[in-house]
């Protein structure tokens, strides 16, 4: 009984630590590496800059001192912008109406490069140097019902004039990630599909994960992290033909 009581005190001490404003730590700590988000993110970090989207604008913060972000600029983009993704000197914004590409080599003078318009849908985006992958989803949770359910592949070698290469109809595409010549696409209640995009005009489904609901993914080396309403799942993807579950944390 006494032991239980002590345990409860320890638990209480452990379990509650709050902070209101006015914390003035700001101590420079080591390791300035950024983490990695999924394709549904509304934040993106590139070097010393934090890009933040709200419903209609893109705000840039200088985070050379990570603890003290300083606002640099505020750019009006479009109504209904949803996701932001950076790669090298380029920033991609997925809106309900299309894909915007900006040059962020000089973030204080970022340049609008192009806008690729598509059917009104939800649309996370990932890209490599030459291709962008955009999923369109028309589910009710995306507000705008109607629209399409598909995966679009765009040629973005010329960032000023992206061109649609191919479209693949899906049931309920959501977040996505790329690794090598594979694109991993969450397909809602229908699990996750893996496509080989060696020929971007004709994506070939080479593998898949079934039996889970999937919303978004992060790929790090040989690990695939999947989040869905049932839980968090980790897979070994070193052999694409034999994707194996490493562990999971179920939410219920």
């Amino acid at each position: 009984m006494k032991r239980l009581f002590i345990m409860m005190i320890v638990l209480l001490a452990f379990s509650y630590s709050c902070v209101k404003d006015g914390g003035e730590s700001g101590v420079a700590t080591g390791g300035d590496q950024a983490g990695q988000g999924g394709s549904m993110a509304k934040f993106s970090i590139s070097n010393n800059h934090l890009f933040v989207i709200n419903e209609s604008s893109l705000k840039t913060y200088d985070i050379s001192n990570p603890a003290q972000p300083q606002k640099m600029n505020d750019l009006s983009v479009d109504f209904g912008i949803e996701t932001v993704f950076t790669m090298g000197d380029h920033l991609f914004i997925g809106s309900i109406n299309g894909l915007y590409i900006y040059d962020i080599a000089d973030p204080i003078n970022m340049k609008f490069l192009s806008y690729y318009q598509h059917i009104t849908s939800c649309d996370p985006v990932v890209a490599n140097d030459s291709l962008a992958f955009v999923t369109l989803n028309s589910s009710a949770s995306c507000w705008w019902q109607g629209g399409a359910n598909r995966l679009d592949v765009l040629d973005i070698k010329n960032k000023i004039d992206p061109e649609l290469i191919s479209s693949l109809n899906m049931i309920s595409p959501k977040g996505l990630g790329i690794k090598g010549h594979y694109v991993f696409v969450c397909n809602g209640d229908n699990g996750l599909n893996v496509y080989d995009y060696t020929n971007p005009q004709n994506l070939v489904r080479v593998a898949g994960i079934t039996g889970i609901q999937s919303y978004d993914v992060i790929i790090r080396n040989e690990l695939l992290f999947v989040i869905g309403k049932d839980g968090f799942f980790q897979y070994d993807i070193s052999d694409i033909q034999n994707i194996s579950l490493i562990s999971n944390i179920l939410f219920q």
Partner: protein
Amino acid sequence: MVFLLFFSGSNTTKTGYRPIYISSDIAKTICFSAPQAMEKQGKIYIKDQYVFIGDINLGVHIIDNTNPEYPEKIGFLKIYGNHDIAIKGNTLYADNFDDLIAVDISDIEHPVVTKREKAVYTLMNHDFPPGVPYGTYFECVDDSKGYVLSWVEAELENPKCYTTY
């Protein structure tokens, strides 16, 4: 979608939605607590050996993934009104209702808010219940009661607000 006010003479009860408020003070307080169950799964973020899983409007679950075969829930970072995070070094950025905050997580059990940028975001779903058909009744939001955390179905007496185009 916006909402309109209307007035009717007689007493009527309608099924609709009522806002659940939290005080402005609590809304902007960041806490670390023991692991808890997921309410509404949000987004995912990874940093070093840690995995962060969003719980929409409530905060982020923190998982130690040092050994991917045995990921371990280590706690919950309570950030009300939160949908998204990003991390650089030991600083976690998050939306906290309409604010953007920077939180020092070098000691994850004792988070410190190092910066708060006010009114970066427009509050979504704050003035009316989200995703309901047009013509749905709801209790008008009283901003003096704090922030709207969620909406619950309720019987409303003489509701003065309903959703419209």
